[in-house]
């Protein structure tokens, strides 16, 4: 596959994923309070009328009853009656040979990029523009025995510009961001992308990846010593 074909494939995939999320999230943010069942998968108007689950909002990026990367004429997005639809490349063909994962469109995009199988453009009007890479890792300590969260800027800046996140989503300052799993599940902070167009939160270890040492556990326990006074 050529670079250009790869770019088209990636842009299509991301557009489809992002479009699905955008359709589904409007006015449908579930609330954590009360005993009402949590809405993890929420049908959009498209699904409610029956033809396809392609635009289903799904925090886990799974599409019940729908194969991933099906042909455009059956994805519920393209018009099957339009002869041009039959000419479109199938996502499964475009993604053939890419490193796989179990989520979303089944492609591990970070590994795919690292392997040089795709070369997304950083700027629309300059194919030679290079991304602004930042090799800064943030480790967020969490309570209990749960491993700490490791946030690598490097992998994120391969896809995003600094201003995509700063400072509308994250204030670049220690202690300025309140992040909770509840918020992420409800589509805030990391959840703005993760579970929509980036890997979902169903595998804790992808973010909680730095195990605590015995010394760290002891220190954490001492820090909240007033709880036992």
């Amino acid at each position, binding site marked *: 596959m050529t670079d250009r074909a790869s770019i088209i494939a990636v842009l299509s995939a991301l557009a489809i994923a992002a479009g699905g999320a955008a359709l589904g999230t409007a006015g449908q943010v579930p609330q954590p309070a009360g005993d009402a069942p949590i809405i993890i998968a929420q049908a959009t108007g498209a699904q409610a009328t029956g033809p396809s689950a392609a635009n289903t909002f799904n925090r886990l990026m799974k599409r019940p009853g729908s194969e991933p990367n099906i042909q455009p004429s059956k994805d519920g997005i393209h018009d099957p009656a339009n002869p041009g639809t039959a000419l479109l490349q199938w996502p499964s063909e475009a993604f053939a040979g890419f490193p796989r994962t179990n989520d979303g469109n089944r492609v591990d995009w970070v590994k795919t990029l690292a392997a040089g199988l795709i070369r997304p453009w950083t700027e629309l009007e300059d194919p030679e523009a290079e991304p*602004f890479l930042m090799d800064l890792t943030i480790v967020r300590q969490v309570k209990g025995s749960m491993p700490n969260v490791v946030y690598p800027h490097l992998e994120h800046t391969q896809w995003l510009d600094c201003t995509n996140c700063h400072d509308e989503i994250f204030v670049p300052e220690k202690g300025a961001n309140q992040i909770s799993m509840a918020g992420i599940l409800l589509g805030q902070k990391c959840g703005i992308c993760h579970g929509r167009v980036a890997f979902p939160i169903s595998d804790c270890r992808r973010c909680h990846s730095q195990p605590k040492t015995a010394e760290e556990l002891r220190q954490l326990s001492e*820090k909240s010593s007033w709880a036992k006074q």
Partner: protein
Amino acid sequence: MSKFSPFRSLLAITAAALLAVSWPAAAQQRVPADPATTGQKAEFIGNLVTRSVSVSRIEGSGDAAAMASLAEARTLVDRARADLKRGAVEAADDKLDQALALVNSEVRRLSGDEVRGAHEQEMYHRRLKAVNTFLATYQRVAKESNSRAAARRAEAIRTLIGKAEDQARGGRHDQALELLDDAYVIARGDIRELRQGKTLTRTLDFATAGEEYDYELGRNRSHFLLLRFALSEKTPAGSVVGRIESNRKKAEELRGAAEKRAAADGYPDAIDLLNQSTDLLLKTIRMSGIFVPG
């Protein structure tokens, strides 16, 4: 993959290119003019150049070029009517098309400027906020790093921001944006220089027991939500479901007790109770079949 044909992409691109090439030719094919339809067309375009929304937009813009085009379009319509009277239908039709094109192109241009202007203004404000944030970050990081050059660099960024603000005050948001972009590129580059290759650890530090209680309460709520999420994802065996529900109720009771203690300023006890509740929820999430490390 077996279904993949390298020619399919080529075919799609060729088809699209053919469509693009053939479209203008198709659009240019003229319907033969006849007196009745051209007379009706003259009436419609006469309205367009005298009392339409397009006219209001052009006249309201005060744009000299647009006003001149409108005047020219009106002349063309008058001449087209004269052509029609003497039976020169094709000539009338041509002039009406020219009048229509003149008005439409001016309205498009004026609307485009308006839309572009609004977009640039919005982009300016967003970028200004981002650049100020990056400047503050740079100054903080430079202070941490004892960087001597930082003060000069920060001043250069501030100067660019000032110039951008001047341009914006004069309504030149496009030029203001260019200056802000320069400031942004300097700021992010300098931050990278000071931070590259580093790992920063955000430790958990609580100034007061009340602060730790708030953190624990958030963590506890997250675990309740995660349990609901786990149950929607997994289908635990019937024998486990009862225990899960019992644990959830017990965790809720513990949280309720913690909230009562906190209301009476008994934060240390409240933290302990919340920890018990969260630990129980964690155990229950694992019972549902989700792997939780730690």
